[in-house]
């Protein structure tokens, strides 16, 4: 399955999970699906049948509320049986509505923002001490950059030249109530990251070739943490969800689901 196909199937599963459990955050999940599809489809060294393999690359999802896309991609890559996704959000399920490390293939639970990058920094430090070649990828939201802990981690990562740390910003410019720009402006973002000592690459977060190229470049760079700023569209792939705050919270109804699935399948 190529990354385009993986993303398409992940979007469908994500929508179905959210509708079944009447959950929120579908817009956030669709925003990052292409990035995950390229990471798990083309970039990361993964061992779905041996998920704890020491040589694996690791992915940390800091915006844990967008978890359905990650659960879907992990299921599609064979970390667990796809039928397990049906338990998402149900009583006694490990598939919680924020990403859970109790699910096979998930490295770290989040839900409170600003935890993923500092944790990934510790992992990258560990890999540096051990001199292993594996990488740590961490995906953060744009609104989440308001958390100061991210900037603390960047200081440390740059100071210690943690080049096994690759940070992806899912820059959809929408947060809980309105745009990032109107909430707490993070621009000029590229310059901020550069000033903190990172190498910054910018991509269209829905163009698989561009994403792939950026990761290829990122994995060869030395001496600095790498930030990939991915310009994305919240709700990507479903016309009525794209760029609207509503789908940070709302659950599609049956008719909306049918339309969404049709659009994705025909894309």
């Amino acid at each position, binding site marked *: 399955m190529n990354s385009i196909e993986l993303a398409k199937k992940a979007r469908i599963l994500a929508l179905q999970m959210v509708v079944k459990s009447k959950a929120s955050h579908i817009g956030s999940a669709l925003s990052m699906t292409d990035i995950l599809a390229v990471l798990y489809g083309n970039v990361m060294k993964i061992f779905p049948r041996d998920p704890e393999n020491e040589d694996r690359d690791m992915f940390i999802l800091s915006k844990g509320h967008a978890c359905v896309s990650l659960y879907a991609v992990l299921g599609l890559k064979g970390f667990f049986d796809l039928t397990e996704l049906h338990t998402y959000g149900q009583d006694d399920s490990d598939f919680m509505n924020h990403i859970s490390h109790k699910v096979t293939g998930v490295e770290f639970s989040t*839900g409170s923002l600003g935890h993923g990058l*500092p944790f990934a*920094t*510790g992992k990258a*430090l560990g890999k540096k001490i051990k001199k292993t070649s594996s990488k740590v990828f961490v995906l953060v939201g744009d609104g989440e950059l308001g958390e100061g802990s991210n900037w603390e981690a960047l200081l*440390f990562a740059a100071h210690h030249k943690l080049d096994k740390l690759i940070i992806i910003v899912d820059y959809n410019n929408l947060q809980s109530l309105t745009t990032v720009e109107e909430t707490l402006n993070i621009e000029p973002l590229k310059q901020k990251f550069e000033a903190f000592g990172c190498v910054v690459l910018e991509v269209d977060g829905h163009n698989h070739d561009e994403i792939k190229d950026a990761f290829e470049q990122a994995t060869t760079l030395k001496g600095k943490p790498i930030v990939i700023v991915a310009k994305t569209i919240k709700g990507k792939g479903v016309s009525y969800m794209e760029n609207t705050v509503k789908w940070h919270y709302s659950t599609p109804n049956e008719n909306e689901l049918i339309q969404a699935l049709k659009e994705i399948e025909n894309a």
Partner: protein
Amino acid sequence: MRNTFIKALTLAAAQNPKIVLIVGDLGYSVIEDFQEKFPDRFYNAGICEQNMASMAAGLASEGYQVFIYSIANFPTFRCAEQLRNDVGYHSLPVTVVTVGGGLSYGNLGYSHHAIQDLGLMRLFPEFVIASPGDPLETEMCLNYLLQNPGPSYLRLKKAGEPNFNTNLKILSPGIWNEILASKNNKIFLTTSGGLNLAQQYIKLNEFENYGIYSLPIWGAQYKTYQEQQLNQFDEIISVEDHLLDCGFGSWLRESITNPNTHLKLKHKALSKDVIGKVGSEDYLLNKGGLKL
């Protein structure tokens, strides 16, 4: 206590290549030996406790046993959520080591008074609390933590404390450590700086026949062992350099199921009058109602 800790940790690190020490820009004239001996296992995180705590969790998830070191309120209250979610929930071997427990840094002001820290740390179900009362207990606690890596809080005072224990023992969590046998079946039960205070209380006629026990290793998981031990005595006075609210004495009381046991338990803990006051440790203990 802090010198005992760092010396023992340095010895342990020579045997165990997985031990890493991260300091929060503190430890001048204390940590240098560790730093020189293990340069790739010593980090100064700088003044950023939230990152220090999450990063320690990340490092621990890579197979290391991580000790983070700072002054009492900084690596606890400042990064409480990081300890709760990243360390505790993931059951990772990170020990938060603090100096300045209680009112040890009295003159430095309220920001440096660790008189609510036990209340915070004992809320986290996965955390073991190690709050030694003298240098020997510090070594005993560290030995336990090295043998049983996991989320943990090691609360130290500062330097130069006398020993009240006479020898190194193997401590078990939740199990009281006899320091002075009771002549009247009444005892002081101490943790952390409470041990020093109890030594002074037994000099009074009123308490001359009391024994002294300490409980250096405890926490949310170990309440179940308390009532049976409480019932071995006619009176137990808990002593701690911490507010009574959410502290060690409150923890003991929460462990009780039999109403009769409640009647035997009394407390010596800091009153809230101490909040906002500044002075030497002795002055503040007096102000807080703990000094003779």
